[in-house]
């Protein structure tokens, strides 16, 4: 995690290891989890529209298992932070992250979630410069807003992080 922002208490980031810790079983379960991630509906700003577009017919995230967007953090395991996190919202982000049951992952979608994005200027008073100051982030998807294909590639990267390999073919360069 990046150095903490003094204004907000960052989330408790430790995830305790599973009770039954057999390596082969864990690998199998990791593949199951990666192929069926349930994102939390956490669209904050412009990137939320691209996140919605990725759930729709053209880009169709359900091909890759992640179309079940749950509104409740208790039922989701992936938090896609799509948009700027303001100082007023930061405690709510931390609380939502802590409410998600482990194992859980975070994708920072868009420049605002990565580093404050276009809203950083000297003397800024309102935003958290990057959601990784308050919660641990697994995958960063840059763009303002990133194309839906960018979010899909971010999802593949996360699946690679969870299972150790990339499962989907790379699109051919033109």
């Amino acid at each position: 995690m990046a150095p903490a922002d003094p204004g907000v208490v960052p989330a408790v980031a430790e995830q305790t290891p599973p009770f039954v810790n057999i390596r082969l079983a864990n690998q199998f379960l990791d593949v199951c989890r990666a192929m069926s991630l349930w994102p939390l509906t956490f669209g904050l700003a412009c990137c939320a529209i691209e996140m919605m577009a990725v759930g729709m017919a053209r880009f169709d995230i359900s091909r890759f298992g992640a179309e079940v967007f749950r509104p409740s953090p208790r039922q989701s395991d992936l938090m896609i932070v799509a948009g700027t996190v303001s100082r007023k919202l930061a405690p709510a982000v931390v609380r939502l992250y802590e409410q998600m049951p482990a194992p859980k992952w975070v994708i920072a979608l868009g420049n605002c979630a990565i580093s404050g994005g276009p809203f950083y200027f000297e003397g800024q008073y309102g935003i958290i410069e990057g959601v990784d100051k308050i919660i641990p982030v697994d995958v960063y998807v840059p763009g303002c807003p990133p194309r839906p294909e960018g979010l899909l590639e971010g999802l593949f990267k996360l699946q690679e992080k969870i299972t150790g390999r990339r499962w989907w073919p790379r699109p051919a360069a033109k």
Partner: protein
Amino acid sequence: MRPEEAFRTLSGDFYTRSLQPGPTEDTLILNMGPQHPSTHGVLRIVLELDGEYIVRAEPVLGYIHRMHEKMGEVKTFAQYLPNMGRVDYLHALAWNWAYVGAVEKLCGIEVSERAEYIRVITAEMNRISSHFVWWGAYLLDLGAFTPIMYAFDDREWLLDLLQIVTGSRLTYCYFRFGGVSDDVTPEFVEGTFRWCERMRSRLPMYKALVTDNIILRKRCEEIGPIDLDMARRYGATGPVLRGSGVAYDVRRAEPYSVYDRFHFEIPVGKAGGDAMDRYLVRMAEMEQSLNIIEQALRRLPPGPVMHEKAPKRLKAPKGEAYFAVEGARGKIGVHLVSDGGKNPYRVKLRAPGFSNLSLFSELAKGVLLADAVSILGSLDLVIPEIDR
């Protein structure tokens, strides 16, 4: 412990604690948001409920306050252009237009004619794409999963076209002081004509699938009636106002650019407009936008896309200017004050959603919670525009 004491010892925050105890003892304080399944953005509404009926509703804003007005003073006039795409990202070109128009008014910059037509075409296409997102999201709130799929699919065609000229899908930064940044290509013109035809065949399908649907009618009719007195007290504009019978559209009231050359109607609802009226107004507006786009494409004049006398380096004189455009949500205004320096002295962004949402606390009194969701959807809110 008496209920009032229990109320005081309950944990809460600044906004829930500042609510005084209500008239009956059995009311429940419920937080809707800031994270909730409705995709309007980060809006929090503190509700005091008596069973399912809302006794009091107070929207709490500021969860996506991104300091746009402060950035207006810190950035130069040109550096501020990308901000405008992000205030209301669904109708980004209208905000582009409001700011660029204010600067052009202040500095006396003229716009080339071809650029005016291109601005009209792209802004109307953006209006349609914004109404698509509104339509899909509203129906998703009401529980229908299919329309949002159709809406986003049609919208993707539209975004492909807009991407050809502007380069972006969502947060456009296409307008410049004196014109637009790039010319339209023949591919765009042809594609847009074909798309308009296709859209005209889709709209009756939406009507048959959704608008005439009995479930939608039951959830929208008689819900959230806004009478003229309320609309004027709160400064409501856009479809929220036109749904109540007032044909007030900035494109006719304060004509800007070349809108006075096109024939288009202003759809209105009936007096005491409810959510269904606002819904029908927006669907009719999509069709009117198609008319404008086709007329503008047919009459697109040749020429440069930036006026010859548009300055390469902007020198803003002292003074102020106010420019208003008709956005998808209502009247967008930019009040620009300059002291002759490099940066604007003060940029005030008048967001239509701000005034439209301010009538929610009065409108939602005594309404069922599910109907309040329907009212919010019919107001077509984009919270980053309200919070700026």
